[in-house]
């Protein structure tokens, strides 16, 4: 299981134990999936699965950063809804698609910025703040769009969500995700800004006293969450070919599940993005396989919830084991020092 500072380099030896375990789970999922249905391994099915997971995957990137710092953002689904509503209203009024997209991105980033502002400068727990903004942003979406929906998107837009690159089964949206993933992964694991996030998640006081600008870092991750949510809104509305005020209700559940399943400690300070990537793939293909087996989305929801819980039980047990080991280590270390 990945814990603590060593996770700042994800390729570090034994540290990757959890990711390797997840990799086996992914392979297992593929094997089971292939058994379940002969359509599973077809290129069209794989591209559907990948395209379907992209919006949640994109949001999972900044969510990982947020959870690493010890905070949380439950309002991501509502930000997506808000961006979708804004875009729909723009398009209803005849604005060009590009302008609507741009405005959506601006609004999403702004929403994230407001989250960050209240959490950081209001010094309030992010849980409560994002519960409030979850309602506020969804409410605003409902106010501007009511029960209407927009579906007259141009073909190229819909391709973003659904179309694949040439003859390959790889969707355009996956390519976008991969680029974003590389950016976030490098940021978190190889730059000093990323390490600052781990410091903040582990010990806020020490981070502050070490010269890290905690306020700016936290503000930044919330802004990133808003911005990525707006991108996810574009891809999701493209995938569904529809923009409504109730778009992406409840999306925070699979996102947080993926992040936690990926080995990120819910209390902050530990976890890796590659782990989250594998977790996202596992969840996407498990849901896909279940769907092929005729299991309804509601039943899939049960599975997602159960996966979250089982993962946490396993982590909880591992954590207790780790703490016992540290106690032993310390008494060993202490004895050594008195012989100085």
């Amino acid at each position, binding site marked *: 299981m990945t814990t603590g500072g060593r996770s700042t380099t994800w390729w570090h030896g034994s540290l990757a134990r959890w990711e390797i375990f997840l990799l086996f789970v992914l392979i297992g999922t593929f094997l089971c999936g292939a058994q379940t249905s002969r359509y599973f391994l077809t290129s069209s099915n794989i591209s559907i699965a990948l395209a379907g997971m992209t919006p949640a995957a994109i949001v999972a990137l900044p969510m990982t950063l947020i959870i690493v710092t010890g905070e949380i953002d439950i309002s991501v689904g509502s930000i997506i809804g808000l961006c979708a509503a804004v875009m729909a209203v723009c398009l209803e009024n005849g604005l060009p698609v590009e302008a609507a997209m741009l405005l959506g991105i601006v609004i999403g980033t702004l929403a994230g910025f407001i989250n960050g502002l209240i959490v950081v400068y209001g010094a309030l727990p992010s849980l409560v703040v994002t519960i*409030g903004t979850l309602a506020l942003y969804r409410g605003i979406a409902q106010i501007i769009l009511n029960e209407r929906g927009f579906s007259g998107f141009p073909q190229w837009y819909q391709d973003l969500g659904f179309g694949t690159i040439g003859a390959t089964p790889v969707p355009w949206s996956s390519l976008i995700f991969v680029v974003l993933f590389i950016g976030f992964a490098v940021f978190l694991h190889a730059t*000093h800004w990323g390490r600052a996030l781990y410091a903040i998640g582990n010990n806020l006081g020490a981070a502050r006293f070490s010269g890290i600008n905690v306020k700016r870092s936290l503000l930044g991750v919330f802004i990133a969450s808003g911005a990525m949510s707006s991108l996810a809104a574009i891809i999701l509305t493209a995938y569904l070919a529809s923009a409504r005020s109730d778009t992406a209700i409840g999306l925070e559940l699979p996102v947080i599940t993926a992040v936690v399943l990926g080995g990120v400690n819910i209390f902050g300070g530990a976890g890796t993005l590659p782990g989250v990537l594998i977790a996202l793939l596992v969840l996407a293909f498990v849901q896909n396989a279940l769907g092929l087996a005729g299991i309804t989305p509601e039943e899939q*929801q049960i599975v997602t919830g159960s996966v979250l819980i089982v993962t946490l039980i396993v982590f909880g047990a591992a954590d207790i084991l780790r703490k016992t080991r540290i106690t032993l280590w*310390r008494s060993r270390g*202490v004895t050594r020092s008195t012989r100085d």
Partner: protein
Amino acid sequence: MVAPVIELRGITKRFGPVEVLSSVDLSLYAGQVHSLAGENGAGKSTLVKILGGIHPPDSGRILKNGIETTILSSADARRQGIAVIHQHPALFPDLSVAENVFVGRQPRRMGGVDWATMRRRSRELLSSLRMEIDVRVPVKILSLAERQAIEIAKALSVDARVLVMDEPTSTISSREVDRLFEIVEQLKQQGVAILFISHFIDEILRWGDEVTILRSGKRIITLPAADLTPEQTVRYMIGTEPGAFFPKEDAQISGPVLSVRGLSGAGFVENVSFEVRAGEILGFFGLVGAGRSEVAQMLFGITKPDRGEIRVDGQIARPRSPRHAIQLGISFLPEDRHQQGLVLQFPIRANETLPILRQLVHRLGLVDRAREGQIARDFTARMRVVATGVEQRTNTLSGGNQQKVLLAKWLIPSPKILILDEPTRGIDVGAKAEIHRIVSQLAAHGMAVILISDDAREVIGMADRIIVFRGGVIASESVRASFDREAMLLAAAHATREGRTLGPPMDALVRPVEGTTVSPAGRWRVATGRLMRVPELGLVLALLIICAAVTTREPRFLQGENLEQISLSATLVCIVALGEAVVIIAKQVDLSVGAMVAASAFISAEWLEHHPEGWILSVVLLGCAVGVALGAVNALLVAVFRIPAIVATLGTLAIYRGGVIVLAGGRQISATVLPDSYGDIARIHVAGAPLLVWFAVLLTVGFGLATRFTRTGRNVYAIGSNQESARFAGIGDRRHIALVFILSGLLCGLVGVLWGARFGTVDAVIAPDLHFQAISAVVVGGVSIFGGSGSVYGAALGALIFAVLQNGVQLLGINRFWLQAVFGAAILFTVLFYSHLARRAERAERQSRRSQQRPGRIP
């Protein structure tokens, strides 16, 4: 020969392969203080834990008054009359002093908690210790010394015959130490046997009647304190000649590197001026709270000074932030190693390079691993840190090694000025000497050092010049040649300026003036009494305002039928909110309430559909059973598997909701297929109001009374305030946490049954936002999301307010799509408002305490 109250014979304890205590003997006698000395790792704290019931010994016997006994747990230790006071008192910040003294054992009267007796007895106990503290104030506003007094009062309240004090003086000022010593004298007269552990050799010999010295888990010797000198004590502790305590090297002192003029700020620091030259060690001496750390924090950019000039190398400097201060060449090793110093999960390397990491990068911010490792290895070796390598995690190092890593961290940026705040606090003698040696060497090589310490011997041994702080101003300044320890201590406690004496005479300070314990309680209560009562009062006020506002626009609001509608729609949310409030007070959260209500509603409606002749009572029981079962699953996950409630209930929310949807298969059960008696539940009126409303009111009052007057209820508050202290106090925290989730489930089950009666139709997607409405009601009702405070009455009022808002929006013809936005805004606004209130209260309290800490100022 008097028999010892407690006798430990041949106590041995092993952790894995390491023998931490080897056959230790110890005897404690009534009315005597037994001091325990030894370095870090000698086994002192393990011995304390064994006496306190936290660990059982692997072999050996414990005899109490000559009879063999075993101590099974910390609660058991207390029952046997052994009280342990830890360095950091395990108290409950949100609970009052009285409650803290009697936590878990509140006096009872007629089955309920007797608050009056509790207050009276805690007041008596504190008086017997000559501490006058208002027992109604929350502990979080009290100082560390006052909290220790409360711990002692706690010990007295259980008639402890043995008191173990684990390093009680490490973090309190000398004046408070004297006061504590007085209390200990009182306890001796009462015949209590005391085991006293400390790092301070002076205190060990001064306080103790007998001294036992441990080294590497073995008892080396036990002697009367009168027969020991400090040097002998240290020799026994470390086993060899102690050598020079303070190896001060001669250093070439040149020009001023740092010069400070007229620095004022942090509320009480006034007009501080000094200079530090290259090669010089300047000591800051004074009591805790005298302003030394505050000055340092102003130099390091943590707080902004109000006035004053700082110059580094002659240039004016205004450190805006720690990062800026580091750039200016200032390094600051903070007092609190764990909260402010190290990221314990990081490897040594990451900790050491944290301040300068942004300089160790390639393009694009990518960290240069090679250079980073090199620098870390270099400095780690220089500090002689004992570790397997720079990749070792810092939390596996001993205290002394951790401090060395911290020192390395602050030397890496090549500072011109090094500020050390209590660098040797809480570490063993060997490591202390090493750090002193390193600091001397640094000065010898030209660094300007500020050494903040409240250990007079340390400061005198290390510094070239000493500045004594008192009450935020500089009380005296002296040079090495004329260091006078007594004069320094006097200056720290009692200053004279131009012959005029500031403050009460010295006698009064050494011997406490009758009944004048610094208690900010009076001021706090005035400042916040009104504010803190605001939650319920303010809510009623807000409610009235909203009602008035709506009525002026739409008079139909006040019509009986409308009011009935409001109260009915508030009812169901209110009942769920009661459960949610208790959950949040316990510092948990339950997101699955909506799903639990839906499950109960559907299952009970379906049962009723197939058993129309069944009793209503059986339906109710069925619904409640469903709720309890689902709540129990939550309880299992959170209390047993220790999964954080937020994610656990996020998961069960999905599982339960999915489950109901699958179970329902798209069906809807409407009132037409259900017996009339069912719907009657919602229609029956009693004394003009619906039965349901009376029921909700009754439940609210019931919960209100239970949370206030039952031990279980008070325990929930305790657990929410500080779960670990609760465990220590023997309150089964897991049990109570499980209880609150089961309770929440029960209430949801009940509401599920009522739902069908009220709304007529039941399907799988009802109450989709209920968790949100419940949490909003609770938060708006003044229950802190951090747990430990608030009341269920507030939650009920919150539910009412939302119902009124909803109704108002409908009546005024406002687009119903505005509702959710309004709700969200309401939450954000209330949370911001409450936090603003709390901060105002804190600031008021801090002001009042500071003005009382400066004797000489007319209060």
